[in-house]
C-alpha cells in the first residue's frame, strides 16, 4: 500500500468565480418595487419590507426603534395577543428590526401559509394603533434591559464608541435612561405616519419564490391606489463632528475584564479605498489567523477574542478594533495593538500571508452567497447603498490584485495613531 504523505498538503484549487444570482425586479400595480430571488428546494419564503427610516432619522434614536416594535402590538382590528397568534398559529416568524439607516419588517414562513400570514404584515404596517398599555410595557421592559446591558463593559464600550465617533450627527446620538423615559406615544405615531409608509418601502422576497408567492404579494401589497415611491430620498448632507480627546476611559470598579475600542471614522462603500481597507483590516484582525488574534490571543493569552473591521453606513463609515481583555493586562494589550499597526505600516505583508488572506476572503465570499436568503442579503447590501452586484465583482478583483505595497500605504494613510480614538471601559 502506498503510504500517504501526511506532511504534504493536498493540491489546492483557486476559486474561479462566485456564482451570483441577480434578483428579478418589477413594480407592483401600485408602483411598489419588489425584488425576488428564488433558489433551493426548501418550500420556505422570507418577505422583507425595508423602510428608508433608521434610528438616525429622528433626534431620539429610540423613536424609530420603538415605533417599529410597536407595530405588532395592536391594530384597528386585532390586539397584540391576536397578532402574535395570527403568526404563531401557522408556525411563522415575524421580526421587526432596525439599524441607523433602515428599518425592517420581516416574515419567515412555509410557503403554504403565506396567504394566511402575509395580510397580517400589511395590517400591522397600515393600521397600527399603538395601544397605551402595550407601549408602557414595552418602554419599561426595554429600559430594564438597557440598565442590565449597561452593566457590561462590552456594551458600554460599543455604545460610547459610536457616540464619540459621530456626535453630534444623528449617527452618534447619545442614549441614556432619560432617552427611554422621554419618548412619547405621540412621537411614535408621528414617526410611523411619516416614515413607516408603504410608499417608503422596498420589498425583498427570497426562498422558494414561485408564481403563488408572487401573486400573494401582489394581492396583499399591490392593490392600493398608485403610490408615489419615496424610498430614494436624498441623503442629508454630512455634518461636522465634535473633536474629542483621543484617549477615553470609563471606570468600572468591579470589572474583571476591560473592553477596548480603537478606531476612527472612515468612508462609505463607494470610496476608492473601501476594498483595500476591508482587506487590510482582515489581515490585522478579521480572521482567526490575523495579526491581532495571533499575538494577543494565541501568543499572549490576554483575551478570548479580538477583531478588526470596517463598517459602512449610507452616509459615513468607520474602522474599529475591538476586544475584552483581562484588566491586569489591559495596558499591555493596548501596546500590542499599536505595535501590530506599526508593523503593517513599516513592513510589507509577506507574499505567503497575503496569498492566504486572499484565498480566505474569496472562500468567505463564496460562503456568503450560498442559498437564496444569503444571496438576497448580499444584493441588499449593495442595492440599499445605491450599488448593484457588480460591487462584488469589483471586490473579487480587488482581492485578487491587491499587493503588499498598497496595503502598507493604506495602513500609513488611515491608521495613524493620532487619528485613532482609544476607548477603554473597565480598569487599566
Amino acid at each position: 500500500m502506498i503510504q500517504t504523505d501526511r506532511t504534504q498538503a493536498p493540491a489546492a484549487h483557486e476559486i474561479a468565480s462566485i456564482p451570483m444570482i441577480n434578483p428579478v425586479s418589477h413594480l407592483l400595480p401600485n408602483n411598489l418595487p419588489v425584488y425576488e430571488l428564488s433558489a433551493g428546494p426548501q418550500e420556505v419564503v422570507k418577505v422583507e419590507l425595508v423602510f428608508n427610516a433608521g434610528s438616525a432619522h429622528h433626534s431620539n434614536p429610540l423613536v424609530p426603534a420603538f415605533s417599529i416594535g410597536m407595530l405588532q402590538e395592536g391594530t384597528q382590528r386585532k390586539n397584540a395577543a391576536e397578532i402574535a397568534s395570527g403568526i404563531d398559529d401557522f408556525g411563522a416568524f415575524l421580526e421587526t428590526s432596525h439599524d441607523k439607516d433602515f428599518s425592517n419588517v420581516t416574515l419567515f414562513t412555509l410557503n403554504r401559509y403565506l396567504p394566511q400570514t402575509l395580510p397580517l404584515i400589511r395590517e400591522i404596517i397600515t393600521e397600527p394603533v399603538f395601544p397605551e398599555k402595550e407601549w408602557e410595557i414595552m418602554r419599561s421592559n426595554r429600559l430594564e434591559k438597557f440598565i442590565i446591558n449597561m452593566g457590561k463593559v462590552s456594551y458600554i464600550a460599543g455604545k460610547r464608541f459610536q457616540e464619540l465617533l459621530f456626535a453630534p450627527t444623528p449617527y452618534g446620538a447619545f442614549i441614556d435612561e432619560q432617552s427611554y423615559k422621554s419618548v412619547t406615544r405621540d412621537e411614535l405615531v408621528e414617526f410611523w405616519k411619516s416614515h413607516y409608509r408603504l410608499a417608503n418601502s422596498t420589498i425583498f422576497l427570497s426562498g422558494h419564490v414561485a408564481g403563488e408567492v408572487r401573486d400573494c404579494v401582489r394581492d396583499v401589497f399591490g392593490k392600493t391606489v398608485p403610490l408615489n415611491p419615496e424610498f430614494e430620498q436624498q441623503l442629508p448632507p454630512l455634518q461636522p463632528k465634535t473633536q474629542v480627546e483621543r484617549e477615553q476611559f470609563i471606570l468600572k470598579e468591579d470589572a474583571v475584564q476591560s473592553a477596548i475600542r480603537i478606531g476612527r471614522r472612515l468612508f462609505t462603500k463607494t470610496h476608492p479605498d473601501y476594498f483595500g481597507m476591508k482587506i487590510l483590516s482582515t489581515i490585522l484582525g478579521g480572521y482567526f489567523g490575523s495579526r491581532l488574534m495571533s499575538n494577543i490571543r494565541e501568543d499572549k493569552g490576554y483575551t478570548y477574542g479580538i477583531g478588526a473591521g470596517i463598517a459602512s453606513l449610507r452616509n459615513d463609515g468607520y474602522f474599529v478594533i475591538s476586544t475584552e481583555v483581562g484588566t491586569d493586562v489591559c495596558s499591555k494589550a493596548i501596546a500590542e495593538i499599536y505595535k501590530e499597526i506599526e508593523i503593517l505600516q513599516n513592513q510589507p505583508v509577506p507574499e505567503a500571508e497575503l496569498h492566504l488572506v486572499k484565498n480566505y476572503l474569496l472562500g468567505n465570499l463564496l460562503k456568503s452567497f450560498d442559498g437564496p436568503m444569503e444571496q438576497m442579503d448580499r444584493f441588499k447590501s449593495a442595492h440599499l447603498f445605491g450599488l448593484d452586484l457588480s460591487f462584488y465583482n469589483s471586490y473579487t478583483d480587488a482581492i485578487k490584485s491587491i499587493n503588499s505595497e498598497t496595503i502598507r500605504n493604506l495602513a500609513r494613510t488611515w491608521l495613524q495613531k493620532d487619528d485613532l480614538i482609544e476607548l477603554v471601559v473597565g480598569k487599566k
Partner: protein
Amino acid sequence: MINYHRFTLTNGLRVLVHEDPSTPLACINILYDVGARDEDPNRTGFAHLFEHLMFGGSVNIPNYDGPLQEVGGENNAFTNNDITNYYLTLPAENIETGFWLESDRMLSLAFSEKSLEVQRNVVIEEYKQRYLNQPYGDEWLLLHPLAYKVHPYRWATIGKEIAHIEDARMEDVKDFFRRYYHPANAIMVVAGNVTLQQVQELAEKWFASIPSGEKQKRNLPEEPTQKVEQRQTVHRDVPSDALHMVFHMPGRNHPDYHTIDLLSDVLGRGQSSRLYQSMIKESQLFTEINAYVTGNLEPGLFAISGKIKQGIKIEDAEKAVRTELNRIINEPVPEHELEKVKNKAESTHVFGELNILNRAMNLAFGELLGDASMVNKEIERIRAVNVAEIQRCASEILAPENCSILYYLSKS
C-alpha cells in the same frame, strides 16, 4: 428530506455522506463521543479545554487553521455536557484539504507545552468573559449543582472552578486524547457538492490507517430521583432579580422527549405563549420569560427562566408561575394550541435545512443517538404528540418535588 449514505471503516469510524450539487461548498463535521459528563470530578472543564488544544497543531501539521484558510475554508467547534463537535466549511473542490487536516489531528496532536499554556489562559479569559464579567453570567454555574447531586451534569462544561483549568497537565491531556479521540469514538459527516465515491476514496486514503481505539465504557452514576424541592438564593450586583425553575426530565432518546419539548413551547416559546401573555402582558410580573429544554442525551432539564420587573417580589412572581403550571397540569391543552406549536416546530426544522452545515450536524447527532435517519422522522414524531400525553408529562415533570429553584437577587 435529507438523503445520505452511510459506511464504516474497519477502524470503526462511522462516515455519512450527504450529496448536494446545488451548493459550491462542502463541509466536514466530526463529532467525538465525549463531553463534560466524562470528566473526572476533580479535573472538570477538561473536555472544553481539550477542544481548544485540538487547534494547537497535530503530529504532521504544525498549524491547523492556516492551511484551511489557504484554501478558502473556515472552521469552529463546540463542547457541551454530552459531546465535542468540530466542523469546517470550504469550497467543494478543496475538500481533500479538510480530510488531510481532520485525519491528522485524529491520528495525533502535537502536544506542545506552549499550546497548553496559551489555551489555559484563553479558556480562563473565556470563563471570565462569559461567566464572571457579565451580569447574570454565573446563573448556570449555580443551576448545575443545584439540580444534580450525583450525575456529572452537576458541573458546567466550562468547569467547576478556574483552578481545575489552571492545574491541567500534559499527562492528563495525552491520556484524554488516547481514550476519546480515535476513530471508534467518532462520527464524520461529509456534506455538500461531493459524491459518495469521492468521500469513500478520501476516507480510505486519509482515515483508514488511523489505528482504532477502545470505545470507553460509560458508567456514569445515575442521578437519584429528586424527592424534595431544592432552593437556593444568591445576591449579585445586578439591576433586576431573576428566577429560574428547573425540573428533571428524560433524555433525548426517550419516547416522551418530543412531548416535553412541545410542552415547553406551549408554556414559553414566543409572544403567543402562555407565560409571555400572562406574566409579561397581563400581570406584568416579568420583563422577560422563557420555557425550554436543555436537550441533553442523558436525563436533562426542563427550564423556566425570567427576569422580574422592578418593584415585584420574586415570591409573588414564583407563585404566579406555579398557577400557570397547575393550569397546564389540570386542564388539557386545547387542540389548536398544540397545533400551533407543532407548526412552529416544523417550520423551524424546514428553515434549518436551508443550511448545509446544519444538515451535516443533524445527521451526526442522529447517528450518535443511534439512527441518522431520525432527521427525516422529526416532523412525524412532532405530529404524533397528543394532548393526553402532554397532560401526563406535565403532571410528572412539573411536580413541585421535581423542581429546583434559584432566586438570583439584586443586591440593591
